[in-house]
C-alpha cells in the first residue's frame, strides 16, 4: 500500500478523537506511519457488529416490557455481557445470575445484592430496576 492509497473513509467511528496509524510506502519506497480516519470494509464490519449488539439489547428490552425477563437482563446485554461474565464480576455462579434474569428471581434480591449488580454494570440501583420505554 502506497501512502496516497491509505484510505480516509470517515464513518465517525473514531468520533474525531484521533486518527489510527497504518504502515504505507512513501515516495522514496520507504515505509512510514500514515494516519487514517478509517476504511470502508472496516467500517462495514464494525457497523455489522454493533447492529448485532443493538438487536440483542432491543430484544432484551422487549422481553422485559412483556414481563418475560427482569431489567437485569436488559442492562446485562447493554453492557455486552452474558450471565457467565456478569457472574465473574459479581463473584456468583452463572446459574444464580440466570435465575436473577427472570422476574421472579430478580424480585427476591436484597438491597446489598442490587447495589453490587448496579456497581458491576456502572448504574445506580434505581436505573438497574428500569428499562427505557
Amino acid at each position: 500500500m502506497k501512502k496516497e492509497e491509505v484510505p480516509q473513509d470517515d464513518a465517525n467511528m473514531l468520533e474525531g478523537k484521533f486518527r489510527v496509524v497504518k504502515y504505507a510506502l512513501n515516495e522514496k519506497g520507504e515505509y512510514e506511519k500514515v494516519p487514517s480516519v478509517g476504511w470502508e470494509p472496516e467500517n462495514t464490519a464494525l457497523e455489522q457488529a454493533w447492529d448485532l449488539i443493538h438487536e440483542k439489547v432491543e430484544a432484551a428490552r422487549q422481553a422485559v416490557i412483556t414481563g418475560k425477563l427482569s431489567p437485569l437482563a436488559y442492562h446485562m446485554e447493554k453492557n455486552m455481557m452474558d450471565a457467565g461474565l456478569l457472574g465473574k464480576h459479581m463473584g456468583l455462579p452463572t446459574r444464580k445470575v440466570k435465575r436473577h434474569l427472570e422476574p421472579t428471581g430478580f424480585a427476591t434480591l436484597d438491597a446489598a445484592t442490587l447495589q453490587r449488580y448496579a456497581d458491576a454494570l456502572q448504574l445506580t440501583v434505581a436505573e438497574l430496576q428500569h428499562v427505557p420505554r
Partner: protein
Amino acid sequence: MSNSVVIPFEHQQSAHCETGVLSNLMRFHGMRVSEPMAFGIGSGLFYSHMPFIKLNGIPVTSYRILPGHIFKRFSRNMGVEMRRIKFRDPREAMDELDRTLDKGLPAGMLTSVFYLPYLPKAFRFHFNGHNIVVFGREGDEYLVSDPVMETPARIHRTALMRARFAKGMPDIKGRMYYPVRVPGDADTAAAAIKGLRRTARDMVNTPISMFGAKGIPYLAGKLRNYERKLGEKDARLALGNLIRMQEEIGTGGAGFRFMFAAFLQEAATLTGKPALREHALTMTRIGDAWRDFAFDAGRVCKARATADITYDTLADKLVAIGRQETALFKELARIPKA
C-alpha cells in the same frame, strides 16, 4: 506520596498496543527500537484460524502470536529483563502503581478497552488485552500513553482501577510491568535475524493445519461452505469478523503484513542484507492482496457484491495468498543466523 508526579515520557503513536508500548518503554530506558523493529524482533507475525475457539459464536482468526508473547520474545532476544506483577486486590495494584511512579518509572499495564472512557465508543468491546503506559498522576487523574492514540490521555483513578480488573478472557488482575534491566549494548541486528528466523519457522513448520501459512488455505476451505453451513446472516457475520481481525485498530493494515514489511526494510539496512529489501516488497504485495480480499469481503457483508464476488472467489483469493506466504516464509527460513 505527593499529589502530583509527571515523568518526562515521550509518547509516540503506534499501530499496535503491544509493540507500541514496547517501543515507547524501551526508548525511555535508552534503547531505540521502532515499532516494526519491536514487532520483528519479538516474532509477532503469525496466522491461525481456530474454528474450535469461538467468540460470540464466531471462530477466531488471528494474524499474530498470542498476546504478551511479543514482549517475551523481544526481551529474550534483546537481553531485557522485565518485572511483571499481578495482584489480588485492586487497591494494592493502584498503590504499587503509585510507588512505581514515585520512583520515576513509567509502568506498562493490561487493561480492558471496554472500561477506557477516553477511547471512541465504537471500539469499546470486552477485550482484556490492551496495553498502555501510565507515566504520571495529577490528583485523582493518571496520565496515560495509549499507543493507538495520537496524544496522551487522562483517566480517573476509579476508571483505571476498573479497567485493570476487568474479568473474562483472561482475568487480567491488574497485570503491570516495567523493565528493570535494559542493556546499552544489545545487538539489534542479530536479534532482528533471530526474530525473523523464528517467524519464518513458525509460519512454515507448525505441524497443525490451522496454524501458520497453511492455515490460510484451511480457512479458504471452510469459507466455501459458510453460506450453506451457517446461513446467510451468520456467514456475513463471520466475514465481518475476519475483516475486523485483519484491519481494525492495532494491525497497521493487512493483518500486520505491512508492519512486517516495514521491519524487513529496516532489518535490510541494519544487517547489511539487501535481499531483505526484496522480501519486503514481496510482503507488501501480499499485504495488498489481503486488503483486496478484505475489500471484496466488505462488499459481500454489505450485500453489495456484484455477481462475480462469491464465497468461492473469496476463498480463491485466500488460497493464492496462502501460496505466496508459504513461498516467502520458506525463503526467509533459509536466511543464515549470522
